[in-house]
């Protein structure tokens, strides 16, 4: 006596479709990660490829560094001021308003300085970097460079990376200094706190490791934001969101979101390793 099963394969269609989608998603993600990693390798290699020219790097420093200077000064000042305000009232409750300088300086140097500088640069320059490269890609300007045997990684991306690595730590330093003075203006000048205590507590609490952590974070964030924003624009045609103006706009939005989240994740990772 044989078993008489009738298998209806239509029942499995939904399952196969689901598996197919999952596989496609996995392959797409792997491809995207590989492309991103190769982009970074080619860019780093591009830094060392001749001819070496200083002018493109200086031009990018002007865009990333000087261009973001005022935004960073304003942001730094107001973040320092709000820290001074909040810190003063909170510390006063416990009779330790003399520690205001330490609170403001440590918050800025360890966390807020590098993170907010990176986020401001992403908003101001990272988005522009992505859009610029995206437009160059869709208007065949990057293909034209390839055809002229000009390495687009060396010519377009490497100067951006170098300029970011030089400018963002300096902008972070500016943010910190302006923030500390913002805190001083509110805590000491406006709320009549003790100026000597503000400075002394800051000097006593800020150690070399804090400055080192600030510098490491600034360099890592610079690296991440240039990598992510430039890659999104450079390979705008390889993504599923299409080719053309809409593709560039979606790439720019994605670049800002992904690089901002990456900066915050990297901030946690670096802090956990360095504390």
């Amino acid at each position, binding site marked *: 006596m044989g078993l008489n099963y009738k298998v209806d394969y239509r029942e499995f269609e939904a399952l196969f479709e689901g598996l197919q989608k999952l596989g496609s998603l996995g392959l797409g993600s792997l491809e995207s990660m590989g492309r991103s990693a190769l982009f970074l390798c080619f860019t780093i290699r591009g830094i060392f490829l001749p*001819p070496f020219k200083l002018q493109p790097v200086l031009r990018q420093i002007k865009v990333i560094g000087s261009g973001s200077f005022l935004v960073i000064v304003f942001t730094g000042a107001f973040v320092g001021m709000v820290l001074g305000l909040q810190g003063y009232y909170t510390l006063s409750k416990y009779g330790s308003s003399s520690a205001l300088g330490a609170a403001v300086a440590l918050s800025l140097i360890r966390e807020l300085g590098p993170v907010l500088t990176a986020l401001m640069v992403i908003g101001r320059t990272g988005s522009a970097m992505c859009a*610029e490269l995206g437009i*160059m890609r869709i*208007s*065949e*300007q990057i*293909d*034209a460079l*390839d*055809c*002229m*045997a*000009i*390495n687009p990684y060396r*010519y377009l991306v490497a100067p951006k990376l170098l300029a970011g690595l030089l400018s963002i730590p300096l902008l972070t330093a500016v943010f910190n200094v302006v923030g500390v003075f913002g805190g001083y203006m509110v805590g000491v000048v406006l709320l009549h706190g003790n100026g000597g205590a503000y400075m002394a507590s800051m000097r006593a609490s800020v150690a070399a490791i804090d400055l080192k952590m600030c510098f490491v974070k600034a360099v890592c964030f610079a690296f991440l934001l240039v990598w992510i924003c430039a890659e999104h624009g450079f390979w705008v045609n390889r993504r599923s969101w299409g080719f053309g103006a809409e593709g560039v706009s979606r790439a720019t939005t994605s670049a800002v979101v992904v690089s901002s989240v990456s900066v915050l994740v990297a901030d946690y990772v670096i802090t956990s390793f360095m504390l």
Partner: protein
Amino acid sequence: MPDSSFAIRLIDIHKSFGAQAVLRGVDLDIERGATTVICGESGQGKSVLLKHILGLITPDRGRVLVEGQEINRLRGASLNQLRTRFGVLFQGVALFDSMTVFDNIALPLRERSRLSEPEVNDKVEKSLQMMDLWGSAEKFPGQLSGGMKKRVGLARALQLEPDILLFDEPTTGLDPVKSHDVYQLFFATQKRLGYTSVIVSHDIPKIFNLADKIAILHEGQVRACMAPAELQRSRDPFVRDFIIRVMGRAYQSSYESDSD
């Protein structure tokens, strides 16, 4: 030993994008020093074919030989060396819109030659004069007309004195007078420099007078590749139909009276 009479050889090129098969076995030999025009209706893969020659697209199957070398197998310095022998005028010209006309033309010289800045300036100024662009040197591409952009593109493509020049729809969007100017300029420079040129165009019948060979791309294959006169005399039904469709009844009557 590569055949030295051909600058470019396309052998059984197949290319698909997703489910869409664009090229389905293209075979085409491009003679050295001659002008070969690739024509065909829109969407037949003419620009894709050009990008295969440039090594910007890798074929799914088949080989692209440029000067005897398989371009898709080349990497790094050898690919760059081969590419310096190319000049390209893209369909959208692909000028760098954040650079002035002068800087656009000077770019290949500054990046790919060992010329000093005064020598670069001298060469670019000569090009500007030759292309009748004097006075537009400090303008940006966005401030130029379509014809001027094409001339800037041609000037840039010629800077490194290429052996092979590729044109993707060089006269698209231009009025008949400007198209004529671009072709005149192109042939004057070809006569002087003797480069091999490949033109993708559907600017027929104008292009008939200027081409040495015409290749017709249809449904992903080169259906005919011959001299314009041979093409006009061809008895192949496809070729006859193509010629009549693109050149009109005037040509058909002259053909029939010739053959009588």
